[in-house]
């Protein structure tokens, strides 16, 4: 279920991407965080309890929105714009 709700700027080009291998779409100008959280409710699992996290500060400070891209890069979802064809995967986190 989506976490974020779109209120404005609906009329934009649709960009296809994959989320954990499943086909998905976002809009041109979305950050990865927006593209993922308008269709799912978390971005990663925490490193110590695997509890779901969905970012917190949205300004590149809290480091709680990291996702993995198909080319192996790990990026902050709040500060990275979605590009067509990206393969975004969410890390499940770890438990102690």
């Amino acid at each position, binding site marked *: 279920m989506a*976490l*974020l*709700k*779109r*209120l*404005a*700027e609906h*009329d*934009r*080009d649709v960009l296809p991407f994959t989320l954990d291998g499943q086909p998905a779409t976002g809009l*041109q*100008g*979305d*950050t990865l965080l*927006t593209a993922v959280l*308008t269709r799912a*409710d*978390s971005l990663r699992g*925490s*490193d*110590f*309890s695997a*509890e*779901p*996290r*969905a*970012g*917190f*500060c*949205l*300004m*590149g*400070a*809290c*480091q*709680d929105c*990291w996702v993995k891209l198909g080319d192996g*890069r*790990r990026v902050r979802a*709040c*500060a990275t*714009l979605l590009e067509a064809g990206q393969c975004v995967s969410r890390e499940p986190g770890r438990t102690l």
Partner: protein
Amino acid sequence: MKHSGIVIIGAGPAGIRAAQTLVAYGLQPCLIDESLRGGGQVYRRQPENFTRSAKALYGFEASKAQAVHSTLDRLQADIDYRPQTLVWNAEAQTLDTLHNGVAAQLPYTHLIVATGATDRILPVPGWTLPGVYSLGAAQIALKFQGCAIGERVVFAGSGPLLYLVAYQYAKAGANVAAVLDSSPLSAQTRALPALLGQPATLAKGLYYRGWLTAHGVPVHQGVDLQSIQGDQRVHSVRWRQGEQDKTLDCDAVAFAHALRSETQLADLLGCAFSWSELNRAWLPTRDAFGRSSVEGVYLAGDGAGIMGADAAEMAGELAALTLLSDTGHQVDAARSTALQHKLDAIQRFRHGLETAFPFPQNWAANAPDSLTVCRCEEVSAGEIRQTVEQGHWEINRVKAMCRVGMGRCQGRMCAMAAAEIVAHASGRDVASVGRLRGQAPIKPIPFGVEVAP
């Protein structure tokens, strides 16, 4: 482009006005910014293909935001502007940067540090749940992405941003379930004399507040937020007001208690810090002209003490004028003096705001042992207290023992709260527990970085 040896870090209101001032005197500074399009957080710009008007995005501040943006746009031909560039280390005469996966070194002779601020967070149980964001984050979701953080949003905490963001959400068509202000109405009444010094700013604050009430948004004051509840995401908030416990269903919460300065680079540069009672924080010391304690390093904007966007514009210009004067340029001294007087007036207003939205002194005492304080390393208030019981009270020592503040965010989200808990548990005042030392890289950088030739 070859720059003049002057580097400005941060393209918010302070950095942009500093760059403009230097260009007016014929210099070509390098302006480095982590974000995509400049403007800082306060005047953050939406992506280029978005169509909302400045009025819709920035409200009463639209003309100021547009002026800052158009200044940056005009300057781009005359400066070495480097957006999407992280400064991850700062030493004498050299900065280490990262742009697009490529690391490089940037030499400088003079530096203006305008690193801005983030939300000041006092954690509550449940604050790591999906659907909980800082107030600044909630505003960025709307301003930068056209999104609300949920279907039914509660705004909590304190400070001017609380009412502003709630108002912006309601105005944009979001469902604002409630505003929960930790400060009592009596505090705001007491602050009125000081706030009257900036009547326009006071009027805006009262307008947001009044608008929310007129549009049926419940506003509660003197609220002690107890917890955010939910399993995999938020389903309700619980708070105490007087003797009463209350619960409200919601699927998102935005909270913060005003702002905190981003000081890591000033620290790595060796700037002296002093305790600011007003900010309840250790801040890099700046003189009335914007000089730090390190020769050639200047400080401007919220990164050296929270004063807001208008003050940041003035402080950016003032720091640039001081730099020019220190390097032998003939500058308009009357302009410097006028800027200092205006900054003094804003500082007095800031004292009023602190009275109106007082820091919740009982927060540390009331934080339960089970509360997660450090969200990176998942260190609880109880674990911090145990560390204090073992005899540790200096914040870096506490970090070494229990890992609070040692995670990816380097304490940006938790260090202030951790210091409050250490101070309370050790019976010291919060100033004396110290501040976390900055460490390079100040933000995570990838292992396989390419190094620029």
